[in-house]
């Protein structure tokens, strides 16, 4: 086999290719990072923000964002998966060496070429860091092409913070402004306490030249948007990544529709300008 994974849909658009689990790393009690390897000859060729449909054969399929950056793929890619139900639960019980099914990458990722030269404000909440990590690492790998990079990250509890080692490394770099907050601290927590919006006061934003990127649980968007719009960032420069129920990933099954828009095709990444008038979006 050769070519990109998406090209294999030529036979059946529902046919997953097998990918072998290279490595499983627990991140928190609920999330694990899976490193997957495609059959030789196949490449994933994704953009940050895109997702794949991941199958545990016999259990089902679930859309999962690609968490690794294209700039760091060595024939492998990473998924950061929360144990949320059947498919993700079954995946969590799997070990290196076992195989899963993958289709994709699907959807529209971040238009990264439009970010070049801009300041970037990342505002992930909770598991929303999983898809943004792909973009963040790509940006950091070509750091010179961008202006200021600010990351405002909120989680419920210190134990739920994802990628703690990477957070530390980003902080170390010196060319990234990182603020982290938790809703409920534990006794060892010395950092910020409060919901993610409390961090925005700390961020220095030059609104006209800033691109903001956010992803998180459904309740979060409205509040984060208020902050971003309040800072004067143009609607067209605010990007959001959405989660919806999906059964096919290819714009047929109807589950992910936001009014007339198929999240799996036109999204999951949208600019605020695009979905501002779409009533079911937020």
């Amino acid at each position, binding site marked *: 086999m050769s070519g990109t994974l998406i090209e294999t849909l030529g036979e059946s658009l529902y046919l997953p290719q097998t990918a072998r689990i290279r490595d499983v790393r627990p991140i928190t009690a609920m999330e694990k990072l899976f490193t997957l390897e495609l059959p030789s000859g196949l490449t994933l060729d994704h953009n940050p923000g895109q997702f794949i449909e991941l199958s545990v054969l016999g259990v089902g399929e679930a859309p999962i964002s690609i968490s690794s950056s294209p700039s760091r793929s060595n024939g492998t890619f990473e998924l950061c998966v929360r144990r949320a*139900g059947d498919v993700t*639960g*079954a995946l969590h019980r799997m070990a290196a060496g076992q195989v899963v099914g993958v289709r994709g990458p699907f959807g529209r990722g971040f238009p990264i070429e439009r970010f070049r030269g801009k300041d970037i404000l990342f505002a992930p909440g909770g598991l929303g860091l999983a898809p943004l990590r792909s973009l963040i690492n790509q940006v950091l790998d070509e750091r010179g092409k961008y202006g200021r990079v600010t990351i405002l990250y909120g989680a419920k509890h210190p134990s739920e913070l994802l990628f703690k080692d990477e957070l530390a490394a980003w902080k170390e770099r010196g060319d990234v402004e990182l603020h982290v907050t938790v809703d409920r601290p534990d006794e060892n927590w010395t950092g910020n306490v409060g919901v993610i919006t409390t961090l925005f006061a700390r961020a220095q934003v030059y609104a006209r030249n800033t691109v903001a990127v956010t992803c998180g649980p459904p309740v979060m968007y409205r509040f984060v948007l208020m902050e971003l719009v309040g800072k004067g960032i143009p609607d067209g420069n605010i990007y959001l990544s959405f989660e919806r129920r999906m059964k096919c990933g290819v714009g047929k099954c109807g589950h992910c529709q936001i009014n007339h828009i198929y999240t799996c095709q036109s999204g999951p990444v949208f600019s605020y300008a695009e979905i501002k008038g779409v009533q079911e979006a937020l």
Partner: protein
Amino acid sequence: MSRPKVAFFDFTSCEGCQLTVVDTLQTHPELLDAVEIVQFREAMTEKGEDYQIAFVEGSCARKSDEERLARIRQQAQIVVALGACAHLGGINAIRNRLPLEAVVNCVYNENGDWSETHPYGRPRLSDRLINVEPTAKPIEAIITVDAILPGCPIDREEFARVTRQLLQGSQPRVPDYPLCVECKFKENVCLFQRGQVCLGPVIRAGCGAICPTYGESCEGCRGPISNPNMDSMQSVLAEAGLTADDLLSRFSMFGTYQMMKLE
């Protein structure tokens, strides 16, 4: 992987659901390779007390049943309510409307003109044998239940599917949408269009709409969906000449316990 140990228990019931389990073997004999059955009174003598999955048939109608249920709950990792009696209280709960005294009198009354011979006199409520509770209950009223297999009797294929989901470590799912979905799949002409009435719009699917398919209206043996539109259902029935009482009366064949709880 070792085969999970499975036990079947029966309380007050007709045992039709257990028989359906046995019948499942006709189409799925491989079930016996997938699980180890350690207790199944209706079909086997051995009684293993070491089990992970307990299928419980029947409603709880005696104090001693509650203790037995508690023991089952303590031992089993997963408890499945098998059939309408266990899931809803079912047919057994119809009697809950009447005081126990009256219920017992109906059956064991010494003056009954249909039973003449009566050497031992009339049993008292306190009798060891008659010591039933005034209400027959679903097992969920006593212990937590991890999954349900609705229906009177259960659906064979659903039993097979739920069992496989348990073996996979998935949460077993039974539909939580109205029966009309499956009825339409079957392309039945709706009973309302044939001048009959049906509980389908508020009852949980999963049986393949077997009653409407065979020309009989849904009797509600799988219980209500979690979010039924009862107001609209009443209008639908009113149009068919039925009142709210009629709706409740139909519903009471399997749903008396639920109805009395709501009151």
